[in-house]
């Protein structure tokens, strides 16, 4: 589904990603871990199509197609979704209108008719139940004045509504208390199928107790320095990142 080959990316003159290789297949959950500043968020932004970054070498293929010429919205139309570490507040646009616009723009790009209002409403109700979201939530301005937990729930709610093929969850666990973490993870697990894939980007192992990865990769200084199964995450939790930094330096 996703194949990243020798990816190098800069912001300004600074090289952040220095040769990433990663392959994600349908039905898989990949976790990307790493210390602060290792390039985790950059990687997710580059996959989603943020223009501030320049790809200097390598490429990203999604379902056999090179993504480099596609804008962020076109990548979303192909089925890529990014759950933000810091969801942006947009006063004046309600959650409902935002999701409605997003769904219908995606449908338009795919040559489909707009989704009938009653079906959209039914879907919203269903997904809201999944994430234990109150219906008053829908008429609030997007992320404006939301608590950390509400913002993250809103991200996963959007994921549920947009039904992406590949979802990248960037630090979804940050700012969540244990109850919210359970609800959000539970939501993600219910959305998981054999057809879609998830990349979980996280600093801590905690989230991976709930969303259990098939593969764990450790990012350090813009490179994947180690890959393994979920036991790698536990090892990192107990030993920290320093041993990997030392290993990488060798």
């Amino acid at each position, binding site marked *: 589904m996703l194949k990243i080959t020798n990816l190098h990316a800069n912001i300004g003159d600074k090289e952040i990603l220095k040769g990433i290789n990663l392959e994600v297949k349908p039905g898989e959950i990949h976790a990307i871990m790493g210390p602060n500043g290792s390039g985790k968020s950059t990687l997710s932004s580059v996959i989603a199509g943020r223009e501030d970054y320049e790809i200097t070498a390598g490429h990203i293929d999604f379902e056999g197609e090179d993504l480099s010429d596609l804008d*962020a*919205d076109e*990548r979303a139309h192909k089925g890529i979704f990014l759950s933000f570490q810091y969801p942006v507040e947009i006063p004046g646009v309600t959650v409902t209108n935002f999701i409605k*616009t*997003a769904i219908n*723009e995606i449908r338009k790009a795919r040559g489909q008719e707009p989704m009938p209002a009653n079906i959209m409403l039914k879907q919203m109700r269903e997904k809201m139940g999944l994430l234990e979201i109150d219906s008053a939530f829908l008429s609030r301005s997007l992320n404006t004045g939301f608590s950390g937990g509400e913002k993250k729930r809103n991200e996963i709610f959007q994921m549920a509504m947009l039904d992406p093929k590949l979802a990248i969850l960037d630090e979804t666990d940050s700012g969540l208390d244990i109850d919210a973490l359970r609800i959000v993870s539970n939501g993600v697990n219910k959305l998981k199928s054999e057809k879609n894939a998830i990349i979980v980007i996280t600093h801590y192992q905690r989230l991976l107790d709930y969303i259990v990865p098939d593969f764990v990769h450790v990012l350090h200084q813009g490179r994947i320095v180690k890959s393994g199964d979920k036991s790698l995450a536990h090892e990192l939790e107990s030993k920290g990142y320093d041993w990997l930094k030392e290993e990488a330096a060798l």
Partner: protein
Amino acid sequence: MEALKDKLESSFLVLENELNGEAQSTVHALRREAFQRFLQMGFPTKRHEEWRYTNLKPILKPDYRIFPKEDTSVEFKDIKRFFLSDQDTYKLVFVDGVYSSWLSETTHQGFDVCTFSNMLNKYKDVSDEYFAKALPKDEALAAVNTAFAKEGAFIRIKKNITADKPVELLFVSTDHGHEIMTQPRNLVVVEENAEVTIIERHQSLSESAVLTNTATEIFALRSSRLNYYKIQNDNDTASLIDSTSIKQYRNSSVNVGTFSFGNKFVRNNLNFFLEEEHTESTLDGITIISDGQTVDHHTLVDHKVPNCFSDEMYKGIYDGNAKGIFNGKVMVHPHAQKTNAFQQNNNVLLTDKASIDTKPQLEIYADDVKCSHGCTIGQLDDDALFYMMTRGIPEKEGKALLLYAFANNALRNVKIPALRKRLNKQIANKLNVNLDFEL
């Protein structure tokens, strides 16, 4: 500028000669007095503090015709688009400054929706009490309007009456092949515990330069309620100078919304004088303009007495080389304790060439008050735009949605659904998108 001044001077003599018996009236004494004031002041220049960001010279340069020929060729189909659809209204239509009875729909049933000239002829008590009593004396263009005040709207809602329909005022300019200047003059009196909604538009059907120098005096008597909306969406050869002054009395509530999308040039002088306690005043504005357009908002909220509330919200979006000015003055006099006065002016510049000069001006001489003001000038938030794009919303629609959301809350006091819908549509048109929902 001098040429126009001279022309106005000779035109004023013509006006006086045509008055016959009326020349001795109180109204005419006020006209004459106003004209003398104008002659002394002259047209404002950039040296004048209130005009330092706006150069009137090019606007005053054309050889305007002051008394256009009467034009009876305008038909309802030519102007239908300027009225609200799906909404029954009273209508007052003026063509080149002359009242058009066949295009209008007036009433005297329980309240008056008729013409200024009718008021001068029939209600001497009204003109004696209200004419030239609200506009400040130091505004040159308002003085010109007062000097030439002959025609416009007269709306009087009698005590305890709520007007059953909104009133639409439409001033059309047609003069074929010649520049014209008109001086519409409106008087609105909302009596005790009465209520009305008024929508005002000025539209040019002419290719030539048009200068509309309009003035409106509004008296909101005790416990009255008034919503007044100005839609400024004229073509790019039309200029508008609007002087509107409002006197508010105890417990009255007045909202003025100014929505500026069109015109080559607009200057709004909007003054609220709070004469008695416990009044509520809201001033909302949305300005969305682009290449070759200037919109200059000057507002004053004069808190003369204690216990009044005012809230002002102006939003501006400037594209191309558009030029915006916002000068919002809030004056709180020494004994105006317990004043609540809020003001905000937020602007987005879409290009490097667009500009906004914004000057919030709070003068507070009382100590027990709640006053705040905020003014921002920004560009579109790139993070918000990227966020939208990752949800599949294309850049153009995303930008429009952000701008829409930015401007939208200044529609907070637009209560007529048909007007809301129209303004939403106009905003979407200005932003060049088709969004299928109302925010």
